[in-house]
């Protein structure tokens, strides 16, 4: 080849020997192709690493010694992991932080669900030097939605990680009534390869769990998670909320018997939160769900079983309703039609009333010596006054109040 080119003479358009020209053309093609590839990639890129403006990379690609500039862009330029800013998470009652090691004995509530336990742990302990998990005896009935509540650092993620099999316990046992292959886990911050589409991610999740390819099942999982329209989009451009939804779609794709969700609503907007909680609540009876949250309103909304962790110890386990009832204060908000003054005066004379004060123009807050005394006495006093009662509801009858009473943390902390 060299000889034939040499014989062809030296009359090239660039006045270069033809064999040198033949040697340089591939190099030129490579450099131009690489620069074009990088410029197209740059134009399509949603974000640059370290916030470097795109025009800077155009200069680097075109004017830094080829192909060094292009290679520098490929290695350092595009930020393939960054997502657009996450939607704001609505303000919700968060649990007060608690110092580690101040934990009492578990208070075992009455068993609630009819199903046999899917997960039981005995004396589960993982000590990280004073923090971690200590002697946790968990019991999760089949078909229940089990809410694991506790402040940051209470040991929720450690417990879920041990249940999921990605951490080991120092002591204790975990007994699963189902195969590990039937468990799906969705972490609080799911992550996926940004260059895959949502459809491919869910398909991969199914494949990893040993399920046959099924496009309709993938589509159904995405639709359930509210991502039907995003199936063909690459997840690199997804917001945090969408990534969290995709994590749920992956978890559901394998049709698991046990679903472990770690802080599943942490990145969702109010509508997304409500939607996801509705989805979780709808799973009750069909599959077992364990989900952790430091947002007690979420736990109360969907969990029929609740476990309260603090300082690595299980303070309470049982029905959510029982926990609220147990720690419910004998305090009511009574709304009267018209002037509440006479009723307040009558209430203050009763021996079972410890305090009565206005909580608005037509609302009284009544504290009693006991639940029974208040429930009997309030209607009687209103009737005796000839007043008309609009409503009477327990004050602070929620999981947050129960949690604060259980842990002894000050209200509003």
């Amino acid at each position, binding site marked *: *080849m060299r000889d034939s080119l040499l014989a062809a003479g030296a009359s090239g358009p660039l006045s270069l020997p033809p064999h040198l020209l033949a040697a340089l053309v591939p190099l030129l093609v490579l450099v131009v192709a690489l620069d074009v590839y990088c410029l197209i990639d740059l134009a399509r890129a949603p974000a640059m690493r370290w916030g470097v403006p795109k025009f800077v990379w155009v200069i680097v690609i075109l004017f830094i010694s080829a192909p060094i500039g292009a290679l520098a862009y490929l*290695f350092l330029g595009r930020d393939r992991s960054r997502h657009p800013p996450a939607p704001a998470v609505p303000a919700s009652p968060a649990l007060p932080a608690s110092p580690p090691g101040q934990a009492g004995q578990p208070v075992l509530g009455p068993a609630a669900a009819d199903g046999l336990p899917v997960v039981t742990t005995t004396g589960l302990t993982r000590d990280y030097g004073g923090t971690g998990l200590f002697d946790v005896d968990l019991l999760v009935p089949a078909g229940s939605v089990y809410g694991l509540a506790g402040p940051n650092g209470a040991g929720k993620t450690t417990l879920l990680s041990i249940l999921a099999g*990605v951490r080991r316990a120092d002591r204790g046992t975990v007994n699963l009534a189902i195969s590990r292959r039937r468990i799906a886990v969705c972490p609080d911050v799911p992550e996926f390869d940004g260059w895959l589409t949502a459809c491919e991610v869910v398909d991969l999740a199914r*494949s*990893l769990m040993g399920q046959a390819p099924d496009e309709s099942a993938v589509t159904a999982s995405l639709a359930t998670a509210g991502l039907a329209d995003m199936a063909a989009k690459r997840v690199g451009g997804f917001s945090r909320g969408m990534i969290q939804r995709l994590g749920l779609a992956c978890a559901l794709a394998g049709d698991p018997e046990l679903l472990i969700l770690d802080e599943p609503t942490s990145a969702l907007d109010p509508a997304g939160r409500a939607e996801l909680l509705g989805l979780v609540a709808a799973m009750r009876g069909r599959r077992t769900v364990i989900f952790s949250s430091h947002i007690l309103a979420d736990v109360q909304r969907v969990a029929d079983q609740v476990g309260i962790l603090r300082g690595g110890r299980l303070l309470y386990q049982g029905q959510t309703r029982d926990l609220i009832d147990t720690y419910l204060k004998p305090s009511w908000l009574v709304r009267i039609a018209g002037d509440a003054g006479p009723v307040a005066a009558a209430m203050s004379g009763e021996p079972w009333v410890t305090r009565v004060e206005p909580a608005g123009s037509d609302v009284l807050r009544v504290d009693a010596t006991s639940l029974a005394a208040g429930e009997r006495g309030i209607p009687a006093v209103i009737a005796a006054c000839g007043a008309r009662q609009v409503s009477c509801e327990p004050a602070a009858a929620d999981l947050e109040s129960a949690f604060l009473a259980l842990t002894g943390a000050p209200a509003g902390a």
Partner: protein
Amino acid sequence: MNLWRLEWLRLIRTPRAVTLLAVFIFFGLVEPVLTRYQSKILAHVGNGVRIVAPPPTPAQGISGYIGEITGIGLIVVVVIAAGALSFDARHGLAIFLRTRVTSIWRLVMPRYTASAAATAAAYLVGMLAAWYETDLLIGSLPAGAVFAGYLCAAVYLAFSVAVTALAASLVRSTLASTGIALAILLVIPIAGTFRAVHDWLPSTLVGAPVELLEGTHRLVHYLPAFAVAVAVSLGALAIAVQRLAAREL
């Protein structure tokens, strides 16, 4: 979608394949040109100093390519392999993968194979480019020696990817894995200064393509290093899988 297709998509949808090919082909195309015109280039930058050098041999055309590949090329290979093999670097992704696969080997095997195969393919394309340029500018090369040299270099690059897998099992971060793998690969040739072990070290395979072309050695000379590279690669992969399986998230 399975884990093999995932690795294929990782290569073609990220700059991995493009980068590997660009680097290897670039050096394959440019090094023979530099070798051929080295004396003229030096004369232009030598401020009038006349440099007389013997005409380059075809083996020297390939030698420049090998030299760049064992330097910059190896760094690119390790960075790309570490990106695929450090799957614990991202916690959420690690949970997604680890809670679904039945064994870590299922995760490591496609990642190792894809990285090693892509590297070997890129090296081959770069080698063919260097061969084309050398044939055009300097002289022809014996095909048998070229492919025997390719075989040795490909085994060394596969060994380098296995070392990267081992490094990824020692630390979580991609950057740290890259650093450890490169440190190991740089230390091995230093051990080669001891004559007793030189012929047994995998790094001996790096010089094989040039030495085979020059006729200094025959392929059989590299069998000990070849065997050690294969054995150590398998051992490194086994240790990596064992360590990754034992790792907690």
